Structure formats: C-alpha cells, structure tokens
C-alpha cells in the first residue's frame, strides 16, 4: 500500500495551456507539457535553494558560457534580420514608386513637381527615398539584401542548434550527477531514515523531483537565456528605428504582463484545485476498487457511487473553470497586440508620410513589436516553472543533507576466526528518546547456541536484530562478538558474520540464480545449486520451465510465499555465515512447503549461533535462551524450564500459544 504513490503518480498541479501563444516549434514532445504544469508547491527557502542549484551547475560553467555566447549570437542575428527585410521592402517600394515616375527625370525634379502641386506630404516621403525615376525594382540589390537575410537566418539557426546541442549535454550531466549523488547518499543513510520516511516519499525525491529539475534545465534554461537576450536585442532595434514608436510599444508591456498575471493567477488557483480534486477522486476510486468485495458485502455500493458522483462533479467544476480562465489569456493578449499594432501603424504612417521613416522601417518595427511580447510572457511562465523546480531541488537537497551513519572506525578490528560468542553488556536502546525500550539488557550467547525471541504480535522482536546488525546503534552499553565491540568493527565486516532470513522475503527483479547468488559475490554455479539443494528448493526450481533462469517478477506472482522463503534460505546457505538471524513464518504457507522450510532452517542452524524470532514450539523448547518481549521491552529471559517454573508472562504465553494445541493434537 505504501507503494501507492509510486504506481499512480499524481500529475503535478498545472498552469494550463501556455499563455501568450507560442512561437512555432517550441517545446512540443514529451517535455512540452512541462510548461503546462508549473507547480503549486512552493520552496521554503527559494533563494538559498536556487543558489545551491546554481552551484550544481558550476562544473559545467565553461559549457554554459559557450551556450550563452551561442545564444547571444543566434539572437543577435535573428533580431537583425527583420531590419534587413525592411530594407528589402524598401527596395521593392522604391522600385514601385520609381516606375510610376517618368524616366529621365531626376528625383529632385519630381519632388519639386510634387511640391508645386501642393502634395507636400508625398514630396517629403519621396525625398527620403532612394528612388530612380523610371526604373523598376532593382533586383540585383534586392537579391543581395535577401541573400544577407537568408545568411542571417541560417547562421542564427546554426547557432541555435549548437546551443541546444550543448545544453542537452549540460543538463543531462547535471542530472546524472544529481542522481548519482542521491544514490550514494542513500547508501550512507542510517536505517532509521528508511524506517521513518514513507517509501513513496523517498522514491519520489529520487525520481519525480529529479525529473522535474531535468526538464527545467533542458527547456527552461535555454528558453530563459534566449528570451532575455531577445528582449534586449529587440528593444535595441526598436529604439534604433524610432524611439517614439519604441516607447509606445513599451507601454503595452506592463499592460500585457498585468493582464497575463491577473488571469494566470486565477487559473492557477483553479488548476491546483483541479489537481487536488482529481487526487481526491483517484483516491476514492482506488479505495473502492481495492475494497470492492467489502463495499459490496457491506451494502455500501450506493454510498460509494454517490460519493464518486460528488467528487466527480467537483473535478468537473474545477477543471472546466481552469480551462476556461486560462483560455482567456490568448484572446486578451491578441487584443493588446492589435492595439499596439494600430498605434504603430497610425504614428508610423504619419512619419512615413512626412518622410522621417521609411515603409520598410515601419514594417520591421511591426515585426519587432510582435517578437517582443512573446519572450516577456515566456519569461513570466518560466518564473512560474522555476518555483516548482526549486521546490523539487529543495526536496532533493533535504535528502542530501540528512545526517549520515557514523563512519566506521579508522582502524577497524577484524575478526579472524569467528567463534560466534555474542554478548549483550548492559545494553540500553530507544527508538524515540522518551520511550524506553531496552533497558540494561545483559545476555551471553555461547557459540552454537540458539536464542529464541518470543512475544505477542508487535512486541518489537526485530529490535534486537536491528541492534545486532548495527542497523541501529545502542544508546548505552555494548554488544560484543567474540569479545570485540561491534562498533569497533567495520559495518560490512560485521554484517558478513551474519546471515539473515526474514519473513519479509526480499527478492529483486532478476533470475532465480541471481537471487540466490546474492548471498555471495562471485558464487559459482555449483555453489548456487548446492545451496538450493540444501534449502530443498532445487527440485522446485527445476520444475519451472526456465529453471534457474526463471525471472522473478516485480511482485513475484509466479512464486508462492513459501517458495520465496526457501530461496532466501538458499541465499543464506550460500553466504555461509557464522551467526544466523531467522524469522519463522506465521503467514500462509502451505503444509508441504512449511515442512521443507522447517527442515532447511534446522539444517542451517546446526553449529551456528542463531537468533530466531520464533513461532514454533520446537524452536522454543530447544533454544538455550528464550527472550520474552512485550510492548517492545524484554520482560523475561531464561530457558524453557526456568521460565515455565517462574509462571510469568512466558508461562501464560506458552500455555495459550503452544501447549493446549500440542496436547489436544496428540
């Protein structure tokens, strides 16, 4: 159940269709949706985390510098192009005008003629132009101008490609490093971290959050760089053409930004409501489907459907509003753009008429003003994406900042021949500081002896295992193996001494051979088969169509619980440890497999010091020491006879748990 979040990842809250319309070819494909889902999640320390994210980019500084240079070059060229196109328009226009004039007259004469006719305006316009009366369009010149334009565009595209190519490498490298660092971190985190944090949460930090960062680096970074450079370049060009027109265009900027933000904010509220409600609906669906039988037998189908309808209606309401509101942005921007357009036309028209501007200039200006709003809106939406990215980065950093296990001692003690004498010397331990668990426990286990840990469900029987394996460290006292404090050993060396077979059988996605071989690095085929034979699982494996090459699924549905346990026993045989930790099965294992497991475990325990979380009568009676736990605490310890004679908790437990069953059975 804890894996729920992994299976159905909640789509991130969204920003809706990108406002302001997009230029052609920008950001389609799988990552393209990214901008449709900025996140409702806010970073706690935006600045700090952003800075830290920046330091992660540092090793790539040179590449990023090149990217910026290429981007600047690409933008500069593409920004220059409309101006040159304007020149082309001028050439055409001049040709048109020139053709209407009689040949053989020069321009000054025509201008004078016009003035004489009282057409002052036309005269002004003409005098500003490079017209050769009687001649049509100068195609040589036009060809040269257009060739320049084509070259500009081609070069710009080339640089753009180079920039994208490099940036892909940068972002992938950064993300690769980040993943690697997180994975290394996971290896150094104490077990407490894994016990305290839901699996889904950790997993989503390693995967979803890092993916989120990757997408931003890939797309938003280049877009942000390009957008900002474009704004600068376009502004410069606009001012160079006409500062009056430029000022008018600038006026519309705050207007579009205000309108976009105002609408986007409202739609964002709806989008996060939508995702919230979809989450609630999905939760309900999951619950009702999973508990299908119960819902039916307990007659709650009507309620289930009613609740579904209610949630469904809420989703409808929010998603409709979100779609609609974000749909208003585009038309509003269009309108503002057209306002700007008309203003430019009017004033530009006047200026062309009185000769202070050429037609080509006006046209170029119109193109620039249209290129101008897009990067601004883009920057605004990237700012929004950045919010969620930094929040993700923060979650990753949080993980990276978790306190690590105390390092192994600089000169660890190595045990040469392990005899398997285990000693608990006045050990105290608590998971939570104010909840006493193990207080002042002393216990000596001689080599080859068996310790049975018994107690009711949830009595905390695994705590001792946690301490022995140093998954957790004792708060006071010491645990010694053959007289050596386990904290003076390297963790890996310590753990090699132990073999562990838990009820919660852990098999990974791979073949049966690989899973058994897990017990020993570089195990040979013979060793693997010998271990399987010892665990009585060889026969079963050979009945499978692929034998040892049978793949085990994610949830290993092809292998029963009992068979899984046998495989983990085989793994322990292969590891051949000096000390054993066993967890006897309580759950549904069929009779025949159960017998095999019992036999295999007994064989495994022979001549080894063993700690057994016991549910079986025989185990308890044969153990040299029994530790009785209740509510997480050790309440009694001794052997069977001693404890029975005491007539305490163990006595009661034994009577209810084993004896009655035993006697009635015989």
């Amino acid at each position, binding site marked *: 159940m804890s894996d729920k979040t992994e299976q159905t990842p909640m789509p991130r809250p969204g920003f809706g269709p990108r406002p302001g319309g997009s230029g*052609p070819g920008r950001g389609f494909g799988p990552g393209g949706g990214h901008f449709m889902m900025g996140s409702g999640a806010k970073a706690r320390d935006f600045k700090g985390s952003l800075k830290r994210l920046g330091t992660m980019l540092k090793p790539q500084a040179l590449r990023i510098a090149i990217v910026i240079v290429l981007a600047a070059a690409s933008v500069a060229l593409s920004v220059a192009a409309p101006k040159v196109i304007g020149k082309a328009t001028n050439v055409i226009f001049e040709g048109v005008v020139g053709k209407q004039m009689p040949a053989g007259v020069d321009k000054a004469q025509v201008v004078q003629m016009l003035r004489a006719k009282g057409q002052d305006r036309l005269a002004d316009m003409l005098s500003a132009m490079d017209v050769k009366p009687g001649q049509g369009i100068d195609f040589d010149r036009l060809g040269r101008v257009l060739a320049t334009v084509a070259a500009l*565009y081609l070069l710009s595209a080339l640089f753009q490609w180079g920039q994208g190519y490099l940036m892909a490498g940068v972002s992938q490298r950064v993300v690769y490093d980040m993943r690697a660092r997180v*994975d290394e971190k996971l290896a150094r985190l104490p077990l407490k971290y894994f016990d305290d944090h839901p699996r889904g949460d950790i997993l989503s930090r390693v995967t979803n959050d890092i993916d989120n960062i990757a997408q931003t680096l890939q797309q938003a970074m280049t877009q942000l760089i390009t957008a900002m450079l474009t704004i600068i370049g376009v502004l410069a060009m606009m001012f160079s053409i006409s500062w009056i027109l430029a000022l008018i265009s600038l006026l519309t900027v705050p207007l579009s930004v205000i309108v976009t933000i105002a609408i986007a904010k409202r739609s964002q509220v709806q989008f996060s409501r939508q995702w919230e409600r979809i989450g609630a609906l999905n939760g309900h669906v999951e619950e009702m489907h999973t508990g299908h039988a119960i819902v039916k037998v307990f007659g709650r189908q009507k309620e289930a459907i009613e609740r579904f309808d209610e949630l469904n209606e809420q989703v409808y309401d929010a998603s409709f509003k979100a779609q609609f509101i974000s*749909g208003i942005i585009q038309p509003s921007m269009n309108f503002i753009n057209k306002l700007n357009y008309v203003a430019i036309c009017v004033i530009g*028209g006047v200026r062309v008429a009185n000769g202070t501007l050429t037609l080509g200039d006006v046209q170029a200006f119109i193109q620039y003003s249209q290129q101008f709003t897009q990067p601004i809106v883009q920057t605004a939406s990237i700012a929004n994406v950045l919010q969620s990215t930094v929040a993700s980065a923060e979650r990753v950093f949080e993980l990276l900042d978790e306190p690590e296990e105390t390092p192994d001692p600089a000169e660890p003690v190595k045990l040469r021949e392990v005899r398997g004498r285990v000693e608990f010397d006045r050990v105290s331990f608590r998971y939570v500081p104010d909840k006493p668990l193990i207080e002042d426990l002393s216990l000596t286990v001689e080599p080859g002896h068996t310790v049975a840990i018994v*107690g009711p469900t*949830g009595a905390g029987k695994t705590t001792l295992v946690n301490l022995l394996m140093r998954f957790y460290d004792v708060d006071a006292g010491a645990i010694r193996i053959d007289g050596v404090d386990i904290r003076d050993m390297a963790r890996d060396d310590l753990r090699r001494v132990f073999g562990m077979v838990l009820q919660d059988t852990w098999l990974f996605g791979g073949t049966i051979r690989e899973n058994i071989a897990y017990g020993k690095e570089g195990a040979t085929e013979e060793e693997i088969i010998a271990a399987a034979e010892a665990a009585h699982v060889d026969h079963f494996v050979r009945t499978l169509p692929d034998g040892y090459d049978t793949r085990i699924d994610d949830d290993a549905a092809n292998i029963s619980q009992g068979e899984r346990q046998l495989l983990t026993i085989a793994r322990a045989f292969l590891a051949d440890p000096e000390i054993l930790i066993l967890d006897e099965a309580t*759950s*549904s294992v069929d009779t025949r497999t159960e017998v095999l497991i019992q036999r295999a475990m007994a064989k495994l325990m022979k001549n080894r010091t063993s700690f057994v979380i016991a549910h079986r009568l025989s185990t308890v009676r044969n153990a040299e020491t029994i530790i009785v736990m209740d509510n997480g605490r050790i309440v009694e310890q001794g052997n069977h006879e001693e404890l029975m004679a005491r007539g305490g908790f163990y006595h009661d437990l034994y009577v209810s748990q084993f004896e009655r069953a035993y006697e009635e059975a015989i």
Partner: protein
Amino acid sequence: MRRLARFLKPYWKQIVLVVALLVVQAIANLYLPDLNANIINDGIAKGDVDYILRTGGFMLGVTLLLGIVSVIAVYFGSKTAMAFGRDVRSAVFRAVEGFSAAELNRFGTASLITRNTNDVQQVQMLVVLGLNIMILAPVMAVGGVIMALRQDVKLSGLLLVVIPLMGVVIGIALSKALPLFRQVQAKTDRINQVVREYLSGVRVIRAFVRTSHEQKRFEQANADLTQTALKVQRLFASVMPAMMVIFNLTTVAILFFGARRVDVGSMQIGNLTAFLAYMMQILISVMMAVLMFVMVPRAAASAERIVEVLETEPSVRDPETPAPESGVCGYVEFQQVGFRYPGAEHPVLCDVTFSASPGEVTAIVGSTGSGKSTLINLIPRFYDVTEGRVLVDCVDVRDVPREKLWAKIGFVPQKAFLFSGTVADNLRFGKPDATDEELWHALEVAQAREFVEAMPQGLDTPIAQGGVSVSGGQRQRLAIARALVKRPDVYVFDDSFSALDFKTDAKLRRALRHETKDATVIIVAQRVSTIMDADRIVVLDRGRVVGIGTHAELLDTCETYREIVESQLTLEEIA
C-alpha cells in the same frame, strides 16, 4: 474511439455552437492580414492618416469580436470536454461497481484505476483540443490557402514546395523521436525499479553487504537513461532550428519572387505583406495540426482501454425474478459445487457438498491452492458456481437479489482492507446507525478494544487509506470487529487470523464463539489450532473434499488432515 462518441451526444448543441464559433474565428483571423494590407497600401503608402485610423479602428473592432468569439468558444468547448470526461468517468466507475470478482481480477485493480483516471484524462484532453485547435487549424490552413490564392495564384505555388518539405522534416523527427520516447520511459521505469528495490530491501542489502553491487546497478541504469535522454534532447535541439529555417527562408523566397510580381504590376506591395501573413498562418496551422494529430493514436489506445471496461458484461447478475424468501436464517449449503475459471484446464473446485447451520462453526482447511478461498467466495457470489449450487437459507444464491444476500453475510477477507476515515467510520461500514456501545462491544470481542483505547482519539482516530497506519494484526482485528458490528446471520472468515499471534488468536476465538452462538460461522484457516474446536472441519485437497468431521474424527480417518496437523504441531520429530 467512436464508441466513446456517444458520450458527446448530449452536448451536440454546444458542439455545433463551438464549431460555428471556430469557423467565425478562423474567418476573422484570415481577414486581419487583409486589413493590414489595406493599411499599408492605402494608408501608410499614401500617407492617409484618416484612413489608417478608420481601418485601424475597424481592425480593433474585429479583434475584439474575435476575442469574444474565442472566449465563448473556449467556454463551451471546455465545458463540453470536461462534462464528457465526467460522464465517461462516471460510466466507468458504475461499470466496475457492477463487476464481479472475475472481471475485477481479469483487469486488475491497478489497471482499472488507471483506466478511470489517466486514460479518461487522455481522451478528455483530446476532446479539449478537438474542440479547439484540431478544428481551427485545418480551417485556418484551408482558409489561408484560399486567401493566398486570391492574392496571387502563382506565388502560392511556393506552398507546394514548403509544405511537403515541412512534412518530411516533422515526419523524420517524429519517426526518430517516438521510439526514443518509449525508450526513455522504459529506462526511467528501470531506475524507479532499482530504487524501489533498494528501499524495500535495504535491510537485506546491507545484511549481505551488497550496497556497492546495488550502486553499480543504479549507476548502469542512470548512465543508460542519461544517454538515451541525451539523444532525445539533441534531436529536439535540431528540430526547432530546422523549422525556423523553413519558416524564415519561406519569407525570403516570398519577398524575392513576390518582388517580381510587384514589378510587373500583378501585385500590390501591401498585398505582399498580406501574402506573407497568410503563408505563415498556413504553415503554423499545418504544423499545429500535425502535432495535434500525433496525440490521436495515444488517445485512441486510451479510448480502447476505456471501452473495454464499459463493454464488459458482468458475469454475475441479479435474477430477473427473485425467488421468495424461505423464512429461515443462517443456513448455508453446498450441493455438488464445482468451479472452474474460464478457459482453465482443471477445475478449482469439484463436487463439494456440505452444509452449515446456525450455531455451528464450519472450518475449511487445506494447503495453498486447494480452493479454500474460492469456495467461500461463492457464498457472496463474488463468483458464480459452474456446477451444482450454493444455497443460503435454502434458496440458490443466484435466485436472490445480491443486496439481500449480502445483507445476511459478514465477510472478513484475507487481506484486511480498511477505508480512509475514522476507526468508527470503518466499524459502522455495515451498520451506519450502530451506537458507540455496539462498536466497543465488537472491538472487545475482536480483541481490539485495548489498542483502540490506547489510540490518541479512540474511535475517532483517523485511519489512512488501506489501513496502513495500523499494524497487520490490528487491521485484521478491526476488520473482524467491522463484521461483528453488522450482526449478520452468516460469518465468513477467510484466513482472517493469520497476522495474529497464537495468544490473541486463542482469546479472540473464545470471545467469538460466544458472540456468534446463534450465527453460522465459516472459517478458512491455515493454522490447525485456529479451527480445532470447530463443529465441522472440511478438508480440501486439490479442490475436492477429502474429509469432513471433527478434529478427533479426522485425525483417525483423514490422512491429509493428519499430515497438516503433524506439520504444524510436532516438529521435533520432523526436524
């Protein structure tokens, strides 16, 4: 996909309206470059400011109208699409609610959830786009072509070059990108799997000192993903510049060839600008259309998965003419019952006959795969028998409306499943009006009183979905209490004591015995100690009854039973 179209039917008026509005929008959009051309031809070029103002004002008017039209279109478009999504979800949910365990297992819970969420979302998104860009883009493209032709037929010939060129570029990019996307997805899944395995197996991994091995696995997966992702990225890095080059060079070509048309007087200079605008509109529309239609196959796959659910007939249905009630309470009888999964070679159950009466405890034992769970699933009709019949209160269960049947049964499943809500909500699941006293009583019988009392808010303590916030043993006891609160005539326990230790198990059974003394109890169990006291033990082996009797009787007569008992109770001899 077509089969989902019926969900759009109720909204046909809105759809017609949206389509009409989109056509208006397209026309207005195409009209605007015309106005631009006029402003340049007759306004700027002639220096006629009045004309510019007049035409500009008109242009603003058109833009405003365009805005209003598109807002209305978006309003009804999203309303329709979202209503469509809502209706499909509702239909899917109802369909699944009507499923029996057979259909549920065939699809799998996880898959059904995805179908009702992600798949519906996919199709809904397509409808959103369908009621906008997918109609607008083709209309704009066609309109643009008409307008361009109107401006200049010869120059329009450029389209014959540019559009195929664009098609080829997009086609190549997509054909390369799509398989890469799939690879990226698969490799991302691989990383997730490695991490998930690490998280779930961290104890074992550290115990076997295999952390570095796990790290190698991760490193490999990481490098693998990075490499493929890099390929995708680089592909994209080249697609956009390529498109920009096509667009921009088209502009250059239009200016070059257009100038000749202007020079010979077959075209006005302002129209050249308009022509440029139409060309761009056509190209953008074509590109948008192509990219949108890429979504279609994906949505179609989703639609198919949805339709599959909607068109599945539940194998278990209520009778058309229910049999009259017999008036007796709590009798369960199996008569030569056989069951086989559709298509299976061997039956799961074969010729099972036994009966249980009020006040009796009937236990069913047998090894894994012997058919125990299947057998009791036949009582509440999670499945229907394929041979023989199951009677509850002397009536064939198939002749009783299921609601009535279920009202008689208290069911405790193998996997105790709790719902999100409070402890009390869960306990009242079968009897919404139960008093607190009733709840506490049930908890006491189920040996759950103590830990519920110890919870911070007692009965009002919230339970997380699935019951993950309580331990397995606690979950089972709460599930038992939930059935007890209902006070049914027949109790069915499907291996419901497995997570309890022997002591709690024993106590619970003692209390239960007293509580259910007037009811029929049917227990499936693995543990012999759980069922030794039963009035009747039914021993199953590979789907057949191999013994019926009390514990003592069966020890003498039933070999399989003796084997089971021995394996569990006298391990000294075996070990």
